[in-house]
């Protein structure tokens, strides 16, 4: 079974990770020698303009793509394929339209090796965690975008992964829903104490949530700089220190006209 023993530290280490798309040896690499270490329990945000390879990087960490150079290690083991210890939430919720909320979350537990009763309890707990009590029997087409994304977050969490990868999870939502879900994600992270890596193009969101913000640059995709966010939580977006940090990161984008949703 693909569980990780709790005695080992569940740190993530990327060493010289590079990627080119197949059959395109002369093109600029999508990712160029990425080095990054994430400590257990840390919240890291990766920001960058579209096309900087941040989502590709997340797929590599998830184990959905093994065509790359360099090393990715999680909990002392090389990442070769997907693992229940590494969860992921996609930008589009990717719920199964033929299943209801409860069944969609249970999808994640199919190979968890838990008993029926444990599964049932875990699903109920996570429905409560994302505030969807009473919606168990709803199908995805009956949910708003924000609610569907909460189901996707519950599905990502229900296996109790050591690491949760979030690929622009709020990118397709309206501003109000987005800020509410950002608050909920902060609460869940504080409650569950698991490592989270959030890919976003929203610098505000990154500074609001993360311990560290990794700024990526495009063509080739590489890490520009890493900014530590030493502000107490919950953070206020109008706080002077918050605004200063955000502006500092924004100034660092290599292609200013690509900066979205600042």
């Amino acid at each position, binding site marked *: 079974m*693909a569980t990780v023993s709790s005695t080992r530290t569940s740190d993530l280490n990327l060493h010289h990770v590079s990627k080119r798309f197949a059959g395109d040896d002369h093109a600029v690499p999508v990712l160029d020698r990425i080095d990054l270490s994430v400590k257990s329990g840390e919240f890291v945000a990766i920001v960058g303009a579209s096309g900087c390879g941040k989502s590709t990087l997340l797929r590599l960490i*998830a184990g*959905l793509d093994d065509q790359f150079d360099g090393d990715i290690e999680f909990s002392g083991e090389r990442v070769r*394929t*997907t*693992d*229940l210890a590494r*969860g*992921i939430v*996609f930008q*589009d919720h*990717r719920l*199964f*339209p*033929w299943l209801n909320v409860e069944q969609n979350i249970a*999808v*994640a537990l*199919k*190979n968890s090796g838990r008993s029926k009763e444990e599964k049932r309890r875990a699903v109920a707990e996570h429905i409560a965690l994302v*505030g*969807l009590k009473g*919606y168990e029997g709803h*199908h*995805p*087409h*009956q*949910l*708003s975008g*924000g*609610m569907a994304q909460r189901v996707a977050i519950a599905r990502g969490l229900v*296996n109790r992964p050591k690491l949760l990868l979030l690929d622009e999870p709020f990118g397709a939502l*309206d501003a*109000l*829903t987005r800020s*509410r879900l950002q608050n909920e994600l902060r609460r869940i992270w504080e409650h569950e104490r698991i490592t989270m890596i959030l890919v976003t193009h929203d610098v505000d969101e990154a500074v609001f949530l993360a311990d560290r913000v990794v700024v990526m640059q495009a063509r080739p995709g590489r890490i520009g700089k890493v900014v530590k966010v030493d502000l107490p939580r919950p953070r206020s977006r109008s706080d002077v220190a918050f605004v200063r940090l955000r502006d500092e990161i924004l100034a660092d984008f290599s292609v200013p006209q690509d900066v979205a949703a600042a």
Partner: protein
Amino acid sequence: MSTPSLELETGSGAIAASGESGESGKAGRWRGWVIPAVALLSWWFVSRHVVAGHGMMTSPAQVLHTAIDQARTGALWRALSASLARELTGFTLGASLGLVLGALLGVSPFANRLIGPSFNAFKQVSLFAWIPLISVWFGLGDVAKVVFLSLAALVPVVAHTSDGIRAVSPALLDVARVFRYSKLQTVRQVVLPAALPSIFTGIYLALIYSWLATLGAEYLLVAGSGIGNTLVDGSEQFRMDLVVFGVIVIGITGWALNALARAIQQRWFRDPAA
């Protein structure tokens, strides 16, 4: 959209609105009866006042009389049950074989490369072009007819099953990989449910095509009984009332099969995204 309950209200509001438009559609349904009613009236008028007593023409009253006669003697039920039994046998055989073949073509790239081109070429040949071969190999009896019907049912099921399976979104397959689904789990939990609406469309078409083919088979492979043979008998005996009666029975049966398939689709295979 600031609270979940508010969001749900918006959702149910949309459902109520679509229900309303459905009701206004129902109210306008009588318009569909205008043309049949006018046709029936003019038929009655022409047969009574214009070409009365002509052998090429029959009256609504005569057809009704024939209908009662056919029903009373049991000829209608014999013909109809023979046709329906044939239709269902051919449909079941063809659709089952089509499901297996379509699933194979959809799931296995190797099978698709091996069989796909031949199947696509086969699909292009009109089904009726096989009738001479079928009659040489299987005669003119029930076996030949069932073979022909199975072919008619097979083609749409294979095409829609394999297309449906291959059209499954890679995004959903990613989800299956994230949760470590085995190949079998992926097929059963993701691929088949995602392809189900398309598969049902194939089965639905198979039901309609095989009914149309039943008539073709009975008309072209003339042996035994069936509603198609009623038509043949009518035209050979110059009994237009029998021909018209047969056409009406065929129409009603086709309509009933169609309605049945629609009802099953509504009940079990509704595309939740639609």
